[in-house]
């Protein structure tokens, strides 16, 4: 630890924008800028600025990883297991190795070595090769002969829990869990395929249930959802004598650099990771991945750059997925609604991997003194799950937010009124109020009361997500002699627009337009930025950007002050000029000030300081802010009771993310969150054939995503929530906007038809079944 830096005291605006703001006093590091006023008093921050690279995207000029071409580039392909569980007895690569154009070949499964030679899911990598053309690589792949000794397998959650089920892992292969506690803590007991429980206890739940007037019980299921990034995973690995350069579609350039250095025994200084354009990640591009590692191995072997780009089938079976879950909730409440006890038991499966819990919704969304949760991971012979937009809390909210609605009905309370009584968050209270007004909640009818074949319904649900921050996040700002300005960080834009908000933050400090700022990101040659997962990018990187810009400005003001013969603190930057406060006619153009520089460039690098007032929790490079992120969504649906088709007609999403920096981009991200949640609720499902263990819909035809005609009217209401926690006071939006959608739709469907569907997705078959309309042959 370094010695504490000098601090100073500042007063920040505080509270919800709509309420009329209060103030809060915080100690802040002395080298950080003064408080930002509310957005209404700012020029650039909080304005709906267009994406800095929007034009490049729509004209195709932006460079994605598959667009990277290097001299002598080879094409890598991965041979994948055809069996869900087997020991590989032999691999004959002789024909493949001799195939014209093949330059490198590596075995992932090494026959004779029990650990590597056992494949545990269809699609697990078995071998990889690189060739001079994609066609040659594909032809060579088909020449590899693999002999499997099949083992019994299990691909279904409930069956895998049975004591007699085939074992997916042995004591050597079983994953150990993550020391951070997310997604699954280490060292939990393993019985058969069931690992856990991870538990949380508060108070005395037995006593809590004894005090309850009403006890509600429900079981809820969620299916496997795949990430379906528009841009598949791709890497170009270039192993050279000077070191390793990797172009990769990634959510974390800096993290991949660390992974590569460790895996290949290289100093960090010899590893460079680059990404430019990206078509989404949603959690599936957080790490190097097995394909990435193979590309580097092949490049090292061939001494040539190697590209591996996954096809859609590989995306669906081996690039991660949102685990399937089953959970049982018991909730005890008094007649006035106050909760006396919550008990949760969950079993989820992330295939051969860990991390299939249901998050902290059950224990943290509502006030309850007595809580008892137990969450288990179950292994099956299917591709590994990984984090996906709101991991844990998406299935968690699917259960809890329906259970709370069911409880409200039992207590004969309006669902909003019950939440007003048990939800301590003033932010969500305001969000409920705004949403209810928008959708005219008072006109909501009783469940199933709509006459006619197509029944309409209205529902809502709430979101809970921690406000994550990466401490290991740095940013450089440079002002050059000609007046141009750069902002640099290894942070990557995965499609959310962080480059644009960086330009806004720097422009606001320097009194420039955001278009005047050159954004240079997505390259580990620049100061190490945060990962773009856990909704933490904006919260982590914009405060150091503002601090660095402010420090650069102080240098410029000192030069200008000498020329203008005033004190530096009498000056300010505004509208492209450095001017004397209160005397705007006295000053100079910004570029005249930079022309005074002794060197070509003045630069400052700043890193993320702790939140002002401290974090709630700190875990290595990551931390969680004091206040959570909320979000309340309302859905209006129409259910055709004869066909079972559910159509979502309207979603009102009332969201918060601290200080909104760019409402246009935030709205766009909320649209994405709502659509992903809607698609999860109605359509998406990985379907595995029980006889062969193979996914039967590994494409985007039979794995259905919501399309344009399934898109409802989406209205985003964005709160300004000022807490004075950092130089920008901004937090994330990606995950909170995805958590409430599915349960809001489910609650609306219940309101429409008067029958509750507790399993996802809400297909016509599921709806007709719930309505009692299924029968055997006519």
């Amino acid at each position, binding site marked *: 630890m370094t010695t504490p830096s000098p601090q100073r005291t500042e007063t920040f605006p505080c509270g919800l924008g709509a309420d009329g703001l209060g103030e809060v006093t915080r100690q802040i590091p002395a080298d950080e800028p003064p408080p930002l006023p509310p957005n209404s008093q700012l020029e650039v921050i909080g304005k709906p600025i267009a994406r800095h690279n929007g034009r490049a995207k729509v004209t195709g000029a932006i460079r994605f990883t598959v667009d990277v071409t290097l001299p002598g580039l080879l094409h890598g392909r991965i041979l994948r297991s055809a069996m869900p569980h087997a020991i590989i007895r032999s691999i004959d690569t002789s024909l493949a190795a001799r195939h014209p154009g093949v330059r490198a070949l590596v075995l992932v499964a090494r026959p004779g070595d029990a650990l590597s030679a056992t494949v545990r899911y269809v699609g697990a990598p078995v071998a990889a090769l690189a060739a001079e053309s*994609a066609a040659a690589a594909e032809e060579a792949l088909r020449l590899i002969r693999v002999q499997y000794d099949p083992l019994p397998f299990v691909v279904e959650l409930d069956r895998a829990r049975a004591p007699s089920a085939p074992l997916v892992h042995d004591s050597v292969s079983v994953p150990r869990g993550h020391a951070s506690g997310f997604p699954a803590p280490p060292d939990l007991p393993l019985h058969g395929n069931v690992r856990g429980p991870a538990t949380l206890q508060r108070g005395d739940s037995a006593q809590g249930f004894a005090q309850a007037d009403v006890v509600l019980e429900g079981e809820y299921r969620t299916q496997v959802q795949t990430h379906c990034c528009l841009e598949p995973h791709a890497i170009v690995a270039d192993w050279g004598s000077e070191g390793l350069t990797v172009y990769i579609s990634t959510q974390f350039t800096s993290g991949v650099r660390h992974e590569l250095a460790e895996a290949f025994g290289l100093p960090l200084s010899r590893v460079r990771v680059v990404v430019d354009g990206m078509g989404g990640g949603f959690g599936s591009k957080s790490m190097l991945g097995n394909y990435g590692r193979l590309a580097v191995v092949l490049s090292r072997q061939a001494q040539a750059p190697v590209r591996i780009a996954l096809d859609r089938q590989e995306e669906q079976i081996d690039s991660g997925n949102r685990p399937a879950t089953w959970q049982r909730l018991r909730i005890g409440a008094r007649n006035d609604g106050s909760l006396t006890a919550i008990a949760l038991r969950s079993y989820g499966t992330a295939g051969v991997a860990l991390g299939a819990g249901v998050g902290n919704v059950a224990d943290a969304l509502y006030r309850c003194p007595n809580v008892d949760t137990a969450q288990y991971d179950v292994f099956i012979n299917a591709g590994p799950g990984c984090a996906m937009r709101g991991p844990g809390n998406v299935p968690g909210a699917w259960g809890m937010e329906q259970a709370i609605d069911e409880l409200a009905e039992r207590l004969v309370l309006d669902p909003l009124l019950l939440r007003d009584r048990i939800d301590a968050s003033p932010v969500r209270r305001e969000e409920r109020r705004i949403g209810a007004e928008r959708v005219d909640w008072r006109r909501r009818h009783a469940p199933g009361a709509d006459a006619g074949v197509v029944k309409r319904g209205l529902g809502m649900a709430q979101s809970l997500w921690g406000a994550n921050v990466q401490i290991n996040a740095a940013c450089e700002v440079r002002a050059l002699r000609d007046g141009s300005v750069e902002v640099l960080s290894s942070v990557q834009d995965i499609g959310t627009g962080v480059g644009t908000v960086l330009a806004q933050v720097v422009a606001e400090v320097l009194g420039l337009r955001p278009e005047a700022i050159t954004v240079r990101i997505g390259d580990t040659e620049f100061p190490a930025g945060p990962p773009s997962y856990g909704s933490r990018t904006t919260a982590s990187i914009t405060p150091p950007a503002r601090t660095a810009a402010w420090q650069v400005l102080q240098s410029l003001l000192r030069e200008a002050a000498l020329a203008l013969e005033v004190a530096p603190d009498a000056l300010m930057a505004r509208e492209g000029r450095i001017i004397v406060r209160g005397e705007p006619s006295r000053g100079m153009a910004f570029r005249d000030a930079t022309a005074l520089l002794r060197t070509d460039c003045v630069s400052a690098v700043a890193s993320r300081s702790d939140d002002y007032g401290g974090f709630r929790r700190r875990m290595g490079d990551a931390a969680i802010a004091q206040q959570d992120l909320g979000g309340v969504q309302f859905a209006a649906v129409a259910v055709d009771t004869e066909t079972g088709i559910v159509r979502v007609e309207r979603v009102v999403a009332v969201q918060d993310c601290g200080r909104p920096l760019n409402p246009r981009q935030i709205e766009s991200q909320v649209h994405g969150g709502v659509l992903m949640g809607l698609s999860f609720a109605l359509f998406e499902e990985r379907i595995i054939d029980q006889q062969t263990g193979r996914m039967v819909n590994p494409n985007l035809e039979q794995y259905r995503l*919501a399309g344009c*005609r*399934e898109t409802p009217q989406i209205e985003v209401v964005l709160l300004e929530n000022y807490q004075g926690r950092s130089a920008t006071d901004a937090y994330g939006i990606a995950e909170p906007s995805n958590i409430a959608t599915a349960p809001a739709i489910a609650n609306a469907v219940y309101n429409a038809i008067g029958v509750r569907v507790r399993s996802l997705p809400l297909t016509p078959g599921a709806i007709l079944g719930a309505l009692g309309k299924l029968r055997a042959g006519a």
Partner: protein
Amino acid sequence: MNVMQPFAWVGAATISQAAAAASGTVAEAMVKHTGAAGPEAVGILKAGGIDLLDLMKENLLAPARLVNLKAIPGLEDIVSEADGGLRIGSMVTLARLGEHPEVRSRYPALADAARGAASPQIRNVATLGGNLLQRPRCWYFRAQEYRCLRKGGEHCFAISGENQYHAIFANRPCAIVHASTAATALVALGAAAELADAHGAVQRLPLEEFFVSSQRDPQRENVLQAGQIMTAIRLPPLPAGTRMAHLKQGERDSFDWPLADVAVVLELADGLCRRAAVILGAAAPVPHRAKAAEQVLLGKAITEQIALQAGQAALEGATPLGKNSYKLPLFEAMVRRARARALARG
């Protein structure tokens, strides 16, 4: 990514040339295809190429030659015939079919089906002939890993497997559903297919007889032979007072296959139903004629009550599988709605 095997591109200038070059059908070539070796020595006809390229990219088919039909004159014509019927060339795109004034005014059920298929991009390329001859979408059939009955294997994986999108009628020994919604409408309209060979002989076959049940032969969906080319579809003239509709219900409205589609053609005179055709699509390996439903309608004034009975009768003989019994209430509703839409159209 899957890389297609190399093939030769053969242009055909006449129907005879094309038929002579068509040395195999897609169905035959797929049974022969092993996936590992090089291309099969066969020439396959290519119309829009939507389904063909799918099959080739998935390595389910690797013909040595593709025979391009686009340069053959006359295959894109839509012509009124002397008997009052309409002759539609097999290379007419679904987009053009759906917008054609004669089709829209005289055979609106066919226009419904054409306009409801796939996506605008696909409708601009896909042809009527290709649509009728496309192979089924069964996910076992479409995956190289499954050597299923329809590809020359021993076993239908769907019957005891993931069969939520499969057939509820005549689903043994193979449970595919026919993929074409245009076929549903055309069978209801009593259309006939024209099949030409290299010697200029033209066979005219009612479309209903053109399709092949899985019981008769699980390796093909139709009777088209090597050396034959579908040149046109002929629609019969329909008496005044004929009402019709085609309805499709997918899980999604955007770019989806039907869970169920229904074509209803009713000939009305003096308020009574003189002729009724009720055809169910996505229900069986061929467009399925709901005979019992037609019997209910014949000779009756079509009231709500009769429509309800017809909807129920349409499911007579259904043998749903483990995961597709939801299709029964769905079809029942669709038959009633198709009838209502046909009558509302006037």
